[in-house]
Every structure is written in C-alpha cells, then in structure tokens.
C-alpha cells in the first residue's frame, strides 16, 4: 500500500517527478559511461598482448615502444639492425622471436611487416592464439594477412589485392603501386588492435621500399642460396617456386621492434638488463606487463578524475531530488494529517517519502542501464574505429553494481531531509485546527 501511495503521489506531481527523473537518469548514465569506458579500456589494454615476455626496440621510452608495437599508435622508433636481431635469436634464453617493421599504412590502417612467427607465437587475451577466419598465413613474399575489422569495413576477401602507402597519414601521396599485396588470410576477430592492422611479409615490405632482395641469410641462421639483385614482379612465379613459403628465411636490414618469447619467464628481467646494457647497439627492452601498468596509471588518473566529477553530478541530481520532495512538503501537510489520523505513524510517513525517493532513483538507474547499453551498442563501431576501444561483454560489471548501490545509499541519505520533515510534521499533524 505504501508503494501504491508513493507511486500515485509521484504521478500526481509528474512534471517535477519527470524532470527530477531525467536529471538523475542523465547523471547516472554519465557515471556508468565513465565507469564502463574506464573498465573496458583497462580490459582492452590488458587483453591486447599476452605471452610476450619482452619487447625490444631502439631506446625511445617504455610507453612509445609499447604504443607503437602493441597498439599501433604513435611513431615507430628507429630500426634495430639485423645483427642485433640475430644476436637475440641466438640467445639461449630466447624461445621465439617476432620481428615487426612499422611505418606504412593502407587506407588509414597500420601496416605491420612481420613473419609467420607472428601468427604462431603472438597471443592475446587469456593466452589465446591468433586464428584465421579465412585463408592462411603468408604464402609468398607479397602476401598480406588482414585483421577482421579491415576485412569487414573495406569489404576485402582472400585473393583481393591491396596497395600499401608509405608513411602513417591516412592520406598518402606515396603509394607502392607497383607492389600490390595479395590477401592470403583474414584473422578471426580478437577485439585487439590486430583487428585493425594489415600484416605483410618483411620481404614484401622491404621490396616495396627498396626493390627485390632474395633472402641471403635466414634470420634463423639458415643460409639462402638465392642472392639475385633484379627486381621483377612475377608473383605467380614466386608462388610456384615456393610451394611452402618460409617467411622467416628472409633477412631484413633492420626492423622496428622485436617481440621475444623466453624459454623461462623468470629470466625476463635478467635478459632485459642484458639488452639494456648492451654496448654493441643501444637497445631498449621492456616488459609488456609493466609498461601496460605504467600506461594505465597515467590513464587511470584522468579517469579517476572523470569518475569523481560524474559522482559529484549524481550527488547534485540527488540533492535536486531532495529539494523537489522538500518543496512539495507544504502542499502535502493535509495529506500527512489524513494519513496520521487513519493510523499511519510518523515513521511510516518518513518511510513513504523515502520510498518515493528510492522509486525515482531505481527507475532512473534502470533507465540509465538501458540507455547506456543502447548507447554503447550504437557507439561500439565508432569507439573501436576512432579510439581503438573494443567493448567486450559483460558491459556492466561489479563496479556498475557497486555504483548503483552507492547511488541508492546516497538517495537514502539525501531523502532523509524531506523524510524527517514529513516525520516532524506527522508528530504534530491532527484534525484541522480551527476550533
């Protein structure tokens, strides 16, 4: 009955109730949005790379190296010479090595030069390996494997030819038109920056920049017999010649970054120290986990600030709710008197006002959850294409539940003001005092 009275009372004051509902809904939605983005960014960050023990590049700074190698953001560092890569490969602690050559784009998407070892060893999320949605890994020097988002947004399929552009701008005037790459495979969606990258062979990339160079020495230590200098684009012949293309057999002059997997993870710190102290070529090795933590710390401060501001907005909206209830108290004196004389105690009146406040907040919270879910669903493609933020399920986590509970707690507290006013009025309310 109390909830019926509360609902009917709110319906009676529907204009002010709806306005209050709107302001609370907007403020809760804002808070939930900030929290979701914060949580999703963190999840997105932590699932971007796993299983990589060290990332090695030219000395430039931990974050720059991380951003350019893992997130495909920012300017890639100066290259690492082949002899350093070979030294790393021959290190007894190293299990596998992924070379990455950065700096080109295809229609705004980053192009990454690598070898098939990338598809063999790179892991994301909870140690998940990359899988092919269609086609296979590199089958010839001018093969390319593209991410799921690129295939979807540009409508590419296996066998299509694409041209890569020099430089990182979304519009480039320096296209490698004479070196079209053939799509050999499309990576299954990962929810990481892999979905938005074009992977080409190191050999193809280098040929596109400098002309042909047929694998003189394998990075894995194998020698190549073929040292032809002519650059002829007879890709079909390439395919025929290499029924099983060995992308690791090509020796690049340099690469931008190298990802390392170690035989024993415990040696990562030791190897990092060795690499950083190397006197042959100045190199920098970073632990991806630590770099991610540092990056998150920087982002986390900003997001904590945003969360704090959103929290204050919710408090303001709830104070507005209390003000609305207080403002209507005078017109409710008669109602309070009636309720008192038919048996409602002062505490019941206090409860009634609190139920009204709670009802408004619960409806607002429900509306906010729906609104935010809809908004995030609508903005999902835009968030992933513009900010590289991949929303993963569930959208609302433990922190959303905590936020809603905290808001309900705050509602209880702020509604005490009008509720106590009703209680006090109830103590003195009686029949019309006109005797």
């Amino acid at each position, binding site marked *: 009955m109390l909830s019926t009275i509360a609902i009917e009372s709110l319906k009676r004051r529907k204009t002010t109730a709806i306005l209050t509902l709107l302001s609370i809904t907007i403020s809760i939605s804002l808070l939930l949005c900030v929290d979701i983005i914060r949580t999703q960014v963190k999840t997105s960050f932590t699932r971007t790379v796993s299983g990589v023990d060290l990332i090695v590049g030219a000395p430039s700074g931990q974050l720059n190296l991380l951003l350019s190698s893992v997130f495909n953001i920012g300017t890639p560092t100066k290259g690492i010479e082949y002899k350093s890569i070979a030294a790393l490969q021959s290190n007894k602690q190293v299990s596998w090595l992924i070379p990455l050559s950065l700096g080109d784009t295809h229609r705004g998407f980053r192009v990454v030069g690598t070898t098939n070892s990338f598809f063999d060893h790179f892991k994301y999320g909870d140690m998940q390996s990359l899988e092919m949605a269609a086609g296979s890994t590199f089958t010839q020097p001018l093969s390319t494997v593209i991410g799921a988002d690129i295939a979807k947004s540009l409508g590419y399929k296996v066998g299509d030819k694409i041209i890569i552009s020099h430089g990182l701008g979304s519009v480039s005037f320096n296209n490698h038109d004479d070196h079209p790459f053939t799509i050999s495979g499309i990576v299954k969606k990962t929810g990481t920056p892999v979905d938005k990258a074009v992977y080409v062979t190191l050999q193809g990339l280098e040929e596109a920049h400098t002309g042909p160079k047929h694998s003189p020495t394998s990075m894995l230590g194998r020698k190549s017999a073929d040292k032809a200098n002519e650059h002829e684009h007879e890709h079909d012949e390439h395919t025929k010649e290499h029924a099983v293309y060995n992308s690791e057999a090509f020796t690049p002059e340099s690469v931008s970054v190298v990802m390392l997997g170690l035989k024993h993870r415990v040696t990562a710190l030791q190897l990092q120290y060795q690499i950083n102290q190397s006197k042959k070529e100045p190199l920098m090795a970073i632990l991806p986990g630590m770099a991610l933590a540092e990056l998150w710390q920087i982002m986390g401060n900003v997001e904590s600030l945003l969360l704090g501001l959103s929290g204050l907005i919710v408090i303001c909206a709830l104070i507005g709710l209390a003000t609305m209830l207080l403002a209507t108290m005078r017109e409710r004196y008669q109602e309070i*008197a009636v309720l008192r004389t038919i048996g409602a105690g002062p505490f019941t009146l206090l409860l009634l006002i609190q139920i009204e406040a709670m009802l408004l907040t619960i409806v607002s919270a429900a509306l906010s959850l729906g609104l935010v879910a809809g908004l995030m669903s609508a903005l999902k493609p835009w968030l992933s294409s513009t900010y590289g933020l991949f929303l993963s399920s569930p959208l609302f986590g433990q922190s959303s539940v905590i936020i809603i509970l905290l808001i309900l707690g705050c509602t209880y507290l702020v509604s005490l003001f009008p509720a106590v006013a009703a209680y006090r009025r109830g103590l003195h309310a009686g029949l019309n005092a006109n005797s």
Partner: protein
Amino acid sequence: MNTINKNNSTHSQRNAVSEEHNAVSEGRNTAIEVSNLQFSYTKESPPIIDIKAWQVSQGEHVFLSGPSGSGKSTLLNLLCGTLTPTQGDIALLAQPFSALSNRQRDKFRARNIGVVFQQFNLIPYLSVAQNINAAVYFASTNVSKTASDAKLRHLLDKLQLPSHVLHAKADALSIGQQQRVAIARALINDPQLLIVDEPTSALDTDARDSFMSLLKDVAGESTMIFVSHDKAMESYFDRHCSMSELSPSTNHIKTRGDEATKAQERA
C-alpha cells in the same frame, strides 16, 4: 485499566456534566473516560483544554458544540491521540489511551477510531478504493482481502455509492460523493468510536438532514462524537455537551482558540 480505577476513585469530584451522563448511560460500558485533562500547545501558554471529568458510554452518540476557537478540534485530536495531553488521562474502550506509546496509539487509532473530517480530506491522487483500503492497511487487522472487499461493497451500497466510483480518483468526485467515501473510510474497520468533525458546515439544510440520516444509519452501534458549532443539530444525538460546560475555565476568553490555532501552526 489503572486509569479507570483511579478515575472511579475520584468519582465524587466529577462535575454536573458527568452526573447527568451517568443517568443517560446507565447499564452501558464506558467508551471514553477523561479525567483532569489539560492541554496547552506551549509550556508558557495557558491550557486550551481543562476538563475535570467526562464520560461517554459505548454506543452513545454525543453532540459536542462550541463556538469557533473553543477547543473542539483540539479535544478531538487528543481523543484521536494525534496530540498528547499536557496533564491528566484519557481512557478509550477501557484502555489507558494517553499512557500508550506513540506507536501503540497509532495502531489503536487505526483499529478502533474512525474519523470523518470537516473537509472530508480524501487523498486526492488516490482512487476511492485506495483511499478506503489505506485505512484497512494501517489498521493491520487479520481481515482477509475478500472479507475487506465485501465489507467495502456493503458500505458503498449502504451509502448509495455506485461501484464504479471505486476506481475514480477522489478529486473527481462530487462533494456529496466525497462525503460518503469519507464515511466509508471511517467505518471500514468497524471502529468502536467514530469522531466526526463539522462535516455539515458547508451543506444546506436538506443536504445536512440527508447526511445525518445516512450517518446515523451506518454508524450503528459505534460510539460517536459529532462536533459542530450549529446547535440546531442537537436533536440527532443522545446527548449534547458544550465546550463551555466541559472546559469552563478555558472558554471565558473567546479568542483563546485562535491563539491555540496559531500555536499549533507554529508547532
């Protein structure tokens, strides 16, 4: 019960009003017993009510009159328990009403006292059914919903209200309908005590007579205190009490009630 015993022991001190009443109510149990009752809104102000002794028997219909500001509504509020006496005792239906805790008084009121207000005071945004059922809810009786609904329909029939008004909002009803719904709400819990506060002040003579017939009919065996400043209504009741007789010491200044009203508003 102690209060009643104490009051019995002080029987000899009762004034002429109660002696007259004893003759009328011979053979009946006491519904209301007031002794040495004083009430003032603030500690500094003189009492608004000062009644040495007053009794109303069960089933008795009492007409309580007095000019505006004489303390009628204050007395009713004391009888309802929405005001607490400054001094003295009120016993209702053999219960030491004024000695009960606030919560006990609220519960007692919900179960045993029906109130019809001057302005009928239905909650405007609730339907007729919700207005009446609110009284059932606050009484927290063990009556089943079926029995309560049956009682409601019976009352509506008796009060000549069509059943479709049950779903109408209270503020969509005519004055006459509001009046009858207010009576239905007051009687839904079968109260033993019915308090009616000047419900006819806005009615013409014909409407007033019709209302009174209806009220007397539905009130049945309930004890009724009916308040009005219109002495012409005295004929409908078993007994007439005036505030000037009940509380002579507080009714010699006509404006005191106005002061009381102001004091109550301040409180």
